[in-house]
Each structure stands twice: as C-alpha cells, then as structure tokens.
C-alpha cells in the first residue's frame, strides 16, 4: 500500500530549512554560549534523517550525493589537523587563538581557530549519525 504523505512532504520541505538555520545558529553561538559543533552537527543530522524518513533513500541520496563515512573522516581530519596547527607556532598541541576583525557588512567580528575545530566535530557528528541510521535502515 502506498501511503499518501503529501502533507508530510510539503511541511518537511519547509521545516528542513528552519532546522538547518537553527543548526547554523547553534554552531556559531557555541563559542560563548550553549551550542557548538556537536549540537550543531546533531541538528543537521536530524534534518537529514527527517528527509530520509519523509522521502525515500534513493531520492535523498541523489540530492545529497555524499559518502557520509567520508564526511565523518573529513571532519575528524580537520579537527586533528587544527591541533597540529599550533605546533607550527611552538605552542602546546590543540592551542587555539582568536582575534577581532572589521569585516564589511558584519562589523567587528570575532574570528577564532576553534571554529575550524568545531566545524570538524560537526562534520564527524553528521557523518557518523547518518551512517548509523542508514546502516540500520538497510539491515531491515
């Protein structure tokens, strides 16, 4: 029996963007307030899983053609290499730094190296969560 899920799909198409915006917000707020790469990554993964649930796997795979194992590996690679970055400056492993820049449009903005590290964490979380969920789905 083919279920009619027009309403679900219509809502999901809209809601996914709200969820992704929330993910970006959480990711960026992580430096000074609750949030960060892990949470942001989880929310992105939640959005992707919602897509997988409401559309079928092939369709979403076609739209987002990433191998999520490699996404996770890329994230881990980014995080570990940012740790190595501090070695170039003779600082202890994993040292981070930040500075304020005057950017057009954003005004005075704090840019930090820890954001790169967190981006790696977010990618790992997205990759791992989606891989786990897809493996479970394929098993059934």
């Amino acid at each position, binding site marked *: 029996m083919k279920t009619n899920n027009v309403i679900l799909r219509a809502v999901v198409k809209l809601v996914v963007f709200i969820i992704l915006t929330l993910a970006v917000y959480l990711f960026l707020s992580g430096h000074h307030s609750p949030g960060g790469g892990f949470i942001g990554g989880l929310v992105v993964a939640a959005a992707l899983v919602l897509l997988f649930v409401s559309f079928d796997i092939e369709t979403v795979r076609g739209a987002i053609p990433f191998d999520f*194992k*490699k996404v996770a*590996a890329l994230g*881990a690679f980014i995080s*570990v290499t940012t740790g190595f970055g*501090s070695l170039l400056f003779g600082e*202890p*492993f994993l*040292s981070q730094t930040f500075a304020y820049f005057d950017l057009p449009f954003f005004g005075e903005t704090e840019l930090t190296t820890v954001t790169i590290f967190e981006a790696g964490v977010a990618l790992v979380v997205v990759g791992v969560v989606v891989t786990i969920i897809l493996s479970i789905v394929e098993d059934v």
Partner: protein
Amino acid sequence: MNNLVVLPMVIPVLAGILFVFFRNQIKLQRWISFIVMIGNIGIAAYLLHLNQIAGIQRIDFSGWMPPFGISFVADSFALILVLLTSLVAAICLIYAFSSIGEAREKMYFYSFVNFLVAGVNGSFLTGDLFNLYVCFEIMLLASYVLIALGGEKVQLRESIKYVLINVLSSWFFLVAIAYLYGAIGTLNMAHISERIAESGQTPLLTVISIVFLTVFALKAGLLLYFWLPGSYSIAPTAVAALFGALLTKVGIYAMIRVFTLFFYHDPSITHTFITVLAALTLIGGSIGAVAYKDIRLIVTYNVVIAVGFILVGLAVATPEALEGSIYYLMHDMIVKALLFLLAGTMISVTGTTRIDEMSGLIRNYPLLGWMFFIVMLSLAGVPPLSGFIGKVLVGQGTIETGSYILLALAFLSSIFVLYSLLRVFLQCFWGETIISSEDEIPMKNGWMIPCAILTIGTIVLGLGAEFIFPYVSDAANTLLNPSDYIDAVLTQD
C-alpha cells in the same frame, strides 16, 4: 612543554583517518602504517633519551595548566612501553602484509591497527585518569573491530563475549573513576596522588582501590582471564600477536601506575589482594597451558602466566622486583608477539591447530623450528635470553620480602611454561614428517622475516641488558618515588 609527547598517539590517529579516503590503495596504506610505527619508535627513543638528561617530559593540551587541563606525561616507564608497542606493531604489520588478505585490508584493517596503537600509546602516556579511560576505549573499540573483522561464525561467537565483558569492565572503570572523583575531587593523576598522600589512604579510598583492581584485573587477565583464551585464539595471526603482546599489557600498566602512584599507603590490604590474585593466576595459567592440545590455547594460556608473573613484582614492590617487572614486561611484549606469530605460521603451514596432528615440521621448515626453540628457552628464562633477567630480579625481590610461596609459584610456573612449549616442540617439530616435499607449502619471507626480527630482539634484549638497565632502573625509581612524578606534572614551566 614538549609537543613530541603527544605524537605517538596523534600520528596513528591521523594515519587511520587518512586511510578512509584511500580505501583501495592498499600498498599506500601498508607503507604509511609501517612508516608511522617506525616514526613512533624514533620519537619514543628520543624522548626516553631526553628523559635521562632533562627529566620527565609533559605537554598540557591547549596550554591549560594541570590539574585543570589534560596533560600527557612521559616518564621512562611509559616511554619504554610506547617504544616496545611501536616496535611490536611494526613487526606485526610486516606479518600482516602477507597474511591478512585483501578482503580485510579493504575493510579498513590498517585504520583500525593504527587506532589500536593510538589507544595503547595514549593509555601509556596520559596523565589524567579520565583520559586513561578514553584511551582504553579507543583501544577497545579498535580491538572489537579487529576481532570481528572477517565475520566467520566462530569470530562472532567469541567477539560477542569479548565485547560484553569489556563493556562491563569499562562501566566498572567509569564507576571507579566517579567514586574517586567524589572522594578526592580531582582527576589529574599527580594531583590525586598528592591529595591521597595529604589526607591519608582512608578505608573508603582502599575500597575504591579494590574497584580499580577489579577493573584492571579484567582488562589484564589477572585471575579474571576467562574471556581471554577464547577471544585471542580466534583472531587472525597478526591480530592475535598484536593482542597478545599489547592489550593485556595496558591493563598491567594501569595497575602498576595506580598502585604505585595512588594507593601505595596501605599495602597490607591492596598488595595482599594483588599477591593472592597473582598467585591464583599463575596456578590457573599453568594448568591451562598444559591442559590443551590446541596450540592457540596453549599460547594464550602462556599470556595468562606472564600476567601473573609480572604482577608478582608489583605485589612485593621492592625496587628490584619492580625493575624485574618492567624488564619482564618488555621481554614479554617481544616474546609473546613472536610466540603468536610462530604458532600462527605453524597452523598456516599444516592446516591444523591440534598439536597431535602435527609432526616433524623441523625437516620441512628448519628455521621455524629453531626460532620456536629459542622462544621456548627465552620464555622459560634460560640465560642469556631476555626472560632471564626479569625472572632473576623478581625472584630477588620475593626473597628480600620473604614471600617464599610467591617465589615458589613464580618459578614453578616457569617450569610449566617450559613443559607446555617443550611438549609442542617435541610433538610438532620432532618425529616423522607428515608433509611430503610435494605438498609442502613454501615458507613466505613475509612470515619468516618478522619472526626473525623478534628472535633477534629477544637475544639483544638479553645480551644488551647492561645497556638497557639505566632506563629500566630510572623507570622503577619514578614508580617508587611518586614525588618525582608529581613534581614533574604540577610545577609550572
């Protein structure tokens, strides 16, 4: 601050991650893994040398000072073990190149070997108790994969047992850490040691120490070794050699560290426990080693005996005995890897695991036979091979403290080791040959070279004892004087 201290853990992690992108370039993966291990040998050797002239090295991650941040602390004891781990891993990799098979290699085999080594090195180097737990988990997760990779029926049966027992013991570990944090209020190992010394080892802390003892006994196979023979005997040869040489050693390391750095104030309780456990392990391991006809089980029970023997040194805790334990730990890593590789090679060439179905192998493979003979003598403690010095020093320690029962058990277990392996030797290498020259499977260089390197290793470790002794003695000294470790960690530089 010395950034080199973190590299033995981080470089293998990075290599393991990179292999995900080069899944099908097996040659590349082999070379990178091998170079990583060789690089780690170099780093560990340099740090060990630095340790003798400049004292204990440490690195505070992100520059957060201890006891607030996480530090890696490299003292001689940890570095000796990192050095041996990298050496054994490099040699097991050479063996894996020609034995593990393309199917496993394409399923990220080398990634997980690298993660395993990262976890082992991290456990040795970390100066933070919770971080020790994390590194244990990295090592265990990699070992779960390595033991189940291949998906044969028997592998799945044993790996389920292995995973369950380790998840349970990890949970105990976490509980023990929580208890200790509740009682002491810190996780930095040097800081814990300092606080316990200030407040005295109260009965509550002694109870917590027994929880730690249970955890590490499960991981090291001290008395609680019921899971060990099954899971170590079904893994592919190169993996079994890695496990036999490294995994129980991490448990032993943690036990020695915890009971020389934190809980050394009330030896009448804690060290009596260790004494009894070590004695029972020696007895149980000896019975197991002579009871079976499956060569893999004989070899794994030999691992159990070694665990008991090394912890005899911790139980009596005199300087000589600890030196002996460290020496024996080094010896055992090399020799157990060799023993597993030789046993695995025998199984590959005969196609059977039962010793009564093998015969006359020395006619077909003389080099294999002679190496088995040497490893047997080395394990039994015949001079000038590497087992001798460890046994003498541990024996000296037990005599000094008057623990004659322990002494008798330790040396009787050596007889059992000799008997169990001599039985294998007589049964499998002597007698009428069962393999005709037409059926003979040609011996691969990739199998013989790693075994030969390890055989040379055990001879060098025995003959070069004089050269290695200052490092071992420094390691034992640091263990016996926790203040050295504490000063190195808690002073600002």
